[in-house]
């Protein structure tokens, strides 16, 4: 079966700044596909192009087998979108927001009312439907946005950093809804995020940095690529230690921020010899299983969090 979304060689420029450079990937029906990357990495640009807000520049995008540039309206009809900026009218009640959304998608009358009931039920907001949106907490407002995006029975839902500004509990909740939709409706979900724990919940992940594809695959596969464990050393003089490790023990290290990082199979076996030789130089040593952050570091040589702010 053809993929639900096919992106080929997509580039985008803001003036002379290249936001995306030759991005190619495809998304299968029924998966939660994540875009992970630091701010400015190209996630939001990708999102804006896919949501049809930005025109496509060089490159080709096919959604549902249709060319995005040619069949914009047809594709819009079958897509649900949740923006990073809240797209609700806060002066209106929850239900009123949904009614307007329905109208914009050509829904009206009983059909619209029953879909609104269904979606309010889905996101658990039936009892708040008569409240003005501004009275709702951030987490609940996000759920209204989701209900709004579901109204037209989309085959594809795309979300831009949907849990920004939510507390961890609300974030977890929101993700529960997404996973539920995928399982019960077979919906395809595309989501951008800069939260590693969210990225871990995606079926597949595209890691973006500086407008380029850094990695693509299942989170567990990406982490397995690094293999074994990751050893992190905090040292008085990291550069010196790195040189000595190479010289004396033939251990390759990577400088990540202030930390020296060692990635190799069975890295735990290095703990004792390293400590025996260099204990006077080492301030701390930690051993952990690779995280998506390690994947990012491994591929870019930079820490993920550094770029975040």
């Amino acid at each position: 079966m053809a993929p639900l979304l096919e992106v080929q060689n997509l580039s985008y420029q803001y003036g002379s700044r290249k936001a995306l450079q030759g991005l190619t990937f495809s998304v299968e029906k029924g998966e939660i596909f994540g875009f992970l990357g630091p701010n400015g990495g190209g996630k939001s640009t990708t999102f804006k192009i896919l949501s049809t807000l930005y025109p496509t520049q060089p490159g080709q995008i096919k959604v549902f087998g249709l060319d995005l540039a040619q069949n914009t309206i047809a594709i819009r009809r079958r897509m649900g979108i949740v923006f990073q900026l809240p797209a609700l009218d806060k002066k209106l009640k929850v239900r009123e927001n949904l009614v307007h959304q329905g109208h914009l998608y050509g829904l009206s009358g009983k059909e619209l009312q029953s879909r609104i009931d269904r979606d309010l039920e889905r996101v658990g907001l039936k009892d708040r439907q008569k409240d003005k949106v501004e009275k709702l907490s951030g987490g609940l407002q996000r759920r209204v946005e989701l209900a709004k995006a579901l109204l037209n029975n989309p085959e594809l839902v795309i979300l831009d950093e949907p849990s920004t500004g939510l507390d961890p509990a609300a974030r977890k909740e929101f993700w529960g809804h997404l996973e539920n939709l995928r399982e019960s409706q077979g919906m395809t979900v595309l989501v951008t995020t800069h939260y590693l724990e969210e990225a871990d919940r995606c079926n597949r992940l595209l890691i973006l940095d500086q407008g380029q594809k850094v990695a693509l695959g299942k989170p567990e596969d990406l982490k397995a690529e690094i293999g074994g464990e990751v050893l992190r050393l905090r040292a008085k003089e990291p550069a010196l230690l790195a040189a000595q490790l190479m010289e004396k023990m033939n251990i390759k290290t990577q400088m990540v921020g202030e930390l020296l990082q060692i990635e190799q199979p069975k890295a735990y076996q290095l703990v004792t010899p390293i400590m025996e030789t260099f204990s006077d130089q080492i301030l701390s040593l930690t051993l952990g299983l690779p995280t998506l952050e390690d994947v990012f570091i491994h591929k870019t040589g930079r820490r993920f969090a550094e770029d975040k702010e």
Partner: protein
Amino acid sequence: MTFLLTVYTLWQRELVRFYRVPSRWFGAVGTALLFWAVLGNGIAGDNYRAYFFPGTIVMSMMFSCIFATASIIEDRQAGFLQSVMVAPVSRAAIVMGKILGGATLATFQGLLIMVFAATVGWTFEFWAFLGLLASLFLISFVVTAMGFWLAWTVESSPGFHAIMNMVLLPMWMASGAVFAVSSSPWLRAFMAVNPFTYGVAGVRRGLFPTANLDQVPTLQTSLLVLLGFAVFFYILSSFVVEKTGDKKST
């Protein structure tokens, strides 16, 4: 069908947003009252007070238009506009809904001034009143459409207000609202191509159908010219949104 539904839903939203916010009511009614308190008492002579009355209505309407179109910038900043722009609807329908909403509110705000119409010798006559309504609505539409176009083009809210005031106030002053004719030829020419001239004229003729108004365009001319301007600015706004729209909404 989707076109009408889109227009309807965006129009309705403007109205709901108006009546949900008490301060806007207060502003609308308060403006009308203050205008009248100041202008009605400050202007000497019953004749001039009556002469000035149509201009007062149009001015009240004008402020409402500025307000309504500024909300486009607000919609954009708040994010509401994005979800409208990615809906499978024509840009022309979005523009129409928004302009109609603003024009409806502005017409209403202009009509509020009519409460004082009896004090300047107005008597209700069905057809004349219909003419007044039509003129007031059309000039509202023209000003809202102009404002829409400007708000879409200008990025910042202060910039928008600065330009709107700079453009609209002189247009209002040179519309026959304050003085009938000018001896300056260029000002006369400006008055002839100024949509406000026709708006004020239509309202004046609607208010005082039997008065001697030789120097004022006829109701028919006024309505036709206003319609022309309305269509022109609507098309201009739709065109701008079509061209730059999707990107500008973020």
